[in-house]
């Protein structure tokens, strides 16, 4: 028996996380790509932390922050009266942080690959930094942007450790597919676990195949002058 509610929740979480990461991640990635400040490596290390941290460490700090006594939790409770931990919104924050490097790194590699002289010409033609970003950098980085989005989506879909820590596994709110599979095993429903696991495997594979397919459609790069 496939847990469709969990699948729907997982997809919703992954999609929302990706959308947030596009808005939040692009400015960070652009700064990393172009900054020459001496503290840039610190920022890069911070962004890359979720790659090496065990989910328990990130989950630990997040749960502390989002609990009723933590700074984020208290803020949330004051604003909405509800609890941030063990809610979809809490999961969203956790997923955004945990998938941050999967979006920001491909973004910034793509941004850095855009020839600086293109930006400079745009500026001398009167376009502001922001307009230059939208009209020159983004169109020329589309492949990297799409890669980052797809990786963030796929990574969030497969998340287990942080969801476990922060989500509490409430059906319909925080029980994602990965948790649901784990749960089926504990309930000794191996058939149910297998079906749901297979579905997640197929979805993940399809997403990755799409990524590699999109890479083939690279934009014509600026050719060297003949």
């Amino acid at each position, binding site marked *: 028996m496939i847990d469709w509610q969990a699948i729907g929740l997982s997809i919703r979480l992954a999609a929302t996380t990706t959308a947030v990461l596009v808005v939040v991640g692009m400015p960070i990635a652009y700064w990393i790509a172009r900054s020459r400040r001496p503290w840039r490596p610190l920022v890069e290390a911070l962004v890359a932390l979720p790659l090496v941290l065990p989910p328990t460490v990130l989950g630990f700090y997040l*749960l502390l922050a989002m609990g009723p006594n933590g700074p984020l939790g208290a803020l949330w409770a004051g604003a909405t009266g509800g609890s941030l931990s063990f809610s979809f919104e809490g999961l969203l924050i956790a997923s955004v942080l945990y998938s941050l490097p999967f979006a920001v790194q491909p973004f910034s590699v793509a941004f850095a690959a855009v020839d600086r002289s293109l930006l400079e010409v745009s500026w001398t033609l009167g376009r502001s930094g922001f307009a230059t970003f939208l009209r020159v950098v983004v169109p020329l980085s589309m492949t990297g942007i799409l890669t980052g989005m797809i990786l963030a989506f796929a990574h969030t879909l497969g998340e287990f450790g942080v969801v476990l820590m922060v989500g509490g596994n409430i059906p319909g709110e925080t029980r994602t597919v990965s948790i649901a599979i784990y749960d089926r095993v504990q*309930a000794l429903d191996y058939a149910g676990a297998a079906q749901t696991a297979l579905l997640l495997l197929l979805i993940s594979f399809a997403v990755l195949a799409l990524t590699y397919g999109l890479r083939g459609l690279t934009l014509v790069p600026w050719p060297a002058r003949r």
Partner: protein
Amino acid sequence: MGTFLTVLVACTPPTAVGPSPAGGNAVPSRLRVAAASDLRLAMDDLAAGWTAAHPEIGISVTYGSSGTLFSQIIEGAPYDIFFSADAELPRRLEDAGRAREGATRLYAIGRICLWVRSESSLDVISRGLSALTEGSVEAVAIANPEHAPYGRAAVAALQAAGLYDLVKTRLVLGENVSQAAQFVDSGGADAGIIALSLALSPPLSESGRHVVVPSDSYPPLEQGVLILSSTADPEIAGATEFVDFVLGPRGRAVLDRYGFLPPP
């Protein structure tokens, strides 16, 4: 330090299986139940029985070890009712202000048993816990005594039988008692001291055999239920009715089927 441990424990995985709210679409209200893992099969039956009579209120259940669920509630998990495997954790929640003082009610006395798979050669029926001294027993699964009352009961029973020192290096700890059962069922452990309520029904009742551990060898598992209240929503629709249902004759009948003894 206390916070650290609380949070770590809160992070161990509870799992949820719950009947979806009856009717599928927008239900006016939903009860969120946190239940100790020994209730995995019993609570499904109880919830189904309740929902049949009250389709307008859906019930979703999250299972986990009592200690884990306790920590989560402390950290803000939005459950409405907490069915613990002991009586102490609900009372601590009262002290922490998560419910009215004295609101905890006992709903059952739990029991533990020793369970092995059908193909095991261990003669647990006649030998009881002493079957664990066999050389072929390499791993014995119990729930983690740090945060599961059933795990603590298993340790106490082993100590009473004078077997704890012998067996303790071979113990495999499940996050909760149903995971301990899963370890044995899948072959990861050779035997397990698990909740009787899990052993009495399929699939475990058909895939293995059990022997009840004598109740006088461990402190009684007095299981308490607590309706959680917050200042925002002191009257949770249906909560009192559901708890009354569990404590009433129909709930009693279900719990009996799963080997629970009535509370004193």
